[in-house]
C-alpha cells in the first residue's frame, strides 16, 4: 500500500486480494502473536488490517509492500487499547464463540511471558528483525525510527529476553549444564 498522495492508483481485483490474503494472513497472525503475546488479539488486528486494505483497494499495490502495510496497521491497532477492544468485540460478535484451539505449548508460554515483559518498541524490533527477517534499516523504515534507535532496541531487547529466559527450558545452558557437571 502506498500513501494515497504519492502514487498512481493501481488497485487490486478480488482474486488478487484473496490470493494475497490467503498467502499472508497466517504468517501475519504469527508475527503479530509474537509482537503482542495474545493470539486472539493478533488474529483480530490482522483481520481488521486486511479489512482496511480491502476498503482502500484502489490504493493497494500488490507490487509494493502490502504485507508490511498490513503488519504496520495491525500493530497500530494492537497498541491502541480502544481500537483493540472494538475489533475484538466486532469480530467476536460476528464469529460467535471462539473456536476450540489446543492450548499453547509450555515453552511458548515462557517465551510469550518474556516477550510481554520487554518494552513494546523493543519487542516489535526484535520480532521484525529476528522473525520477519527485516534488516535493521528495514526495521527502521517500518517503525519510523532512526537506525541507531533500532540497534539499541534490538540490543536491549535481546539482553532482556536472555535475562528473562535464563534458567528456563529455553535457556540452552539449562540443558547443557548436566553434561558440564558430568564432564
Amino acid at each position, binding site marked *: 500500500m502506498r500513501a494515497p498522495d504519492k502514487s498512481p492508483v493501481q488497485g487490486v481485483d478480488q482474486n488478487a486480494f484473496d490470493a494475497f490474503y490467503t498467502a499472508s494472513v497466517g504468517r501475519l497472525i504469527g508475527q503479530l502473536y509474537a509482537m503482542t503475546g495474545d493470539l486472539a488479539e493478533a488474529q483480530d488486528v490482522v483481520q481488521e488490517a486486511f479489512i482496511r486494505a480491502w476498503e482502500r483497494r484502489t490504493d493497494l499495490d500488490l507490487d509494493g509492500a502490502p504485507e508490511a502495510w498490513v503488519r504496520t496497521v495491525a500493530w497500530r491497532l494492537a497498541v491502541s487499547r480502544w481500537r483493540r477492544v472494538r475489533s475484538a468485540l466486532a*469480530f467476536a460478535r460476528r464469529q460467535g464463540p471462539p473456536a476450540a484451539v489446543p492450548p*499453547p505449548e509450555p515453552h511458548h508460554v515462557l517465551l510469550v511471558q518474556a516477550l510481554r515483559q520487554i518494552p513494546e518498541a523493543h519487542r516489535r524490533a526484535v520480532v521484525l528483525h529476528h522473525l520477519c527477517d527485516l534488516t535493521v534499516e528495514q526495521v527502521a523504515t517500518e517503525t519510523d525510527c532512526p537506525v541507531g534507535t533500532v540497534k539499541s532496541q534490538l540490543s536491549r531487547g535481546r539482553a532482556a*529476553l536472555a535475562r528473562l529466559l535464563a534458567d528456563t527450558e529455553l535457556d540452552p*545452558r539449562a540443558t547443557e549444564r548436566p553434561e558440564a557437571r558430568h564432564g
Partner: protein
Amino acid sequence: MADQTELQDHLADLAESGRLRAVPLGAERIRAHGERRRRRRRAARAGGGALLVAALALGGLSLAGTDRGPEPPATDPTPTPSMFVRPTPAPGQEYASELGYVHGAVVEGDAVRITVEQLRAGEGAPTATGVVHTLTLPRRTLVEARQLAGGEPADLELGELVDQLAGGPRWVFAIDYDGEGRVGSLREAFWLAE
C-alpha cells in the same frame, strides 16, 4: 538465550504455533466487512453534506432573525448546557468513539435527532460524565445492534430504531466520529450489560 540464531528459532516456532492455531475468516468475509465500511463511509459523507446544507440554511434563518424584535434583557450568562467536545481520532486511527446513553430520538425530515448522555468507561460500571448533547444524524446512519435487534447481531439504520430510542435513557452506544467530526456509526454497547 545463547545466540541470535536460537532466538530466531524460538520466535519462528512461536509464530508457527500461532499460525496453526489461528482460525482466520475467509477472504470473502474480510471483503464483505470492507465493502460495508465503504458504503457506510459514503453514506456518512452524503449525509454530512446534506446536514451541512441544512445547518447553513438554519444558520442563515437564525442570522436573518436577529434584527426582529428587541434584544433579550442582559442577564448573567447561564452555564453552557453541554461541555461536549467531539472526540478526535488519534494519529493513525480512523475513528474516535464516545460512549453514552442514546435516547429521546425524534425524526426531523430525513434526519433523526438523538440525545446523548455521555458515559465514561472504566473499572466496573460506566459512570456519567455529566456531558449531555444532541446529535442530528441521517436516518441512514448505520447502527450495529444486538439486543435492540432481538439478540442477534444486525446492521440497522438509525431511522429504524426511532421508536425504541424515543424514550428515556436505556440503551448505551459507542458513537464513532471520524477525523472531521462526523458520526460514522453507532454500535450498541451490549458488552456493558454482559
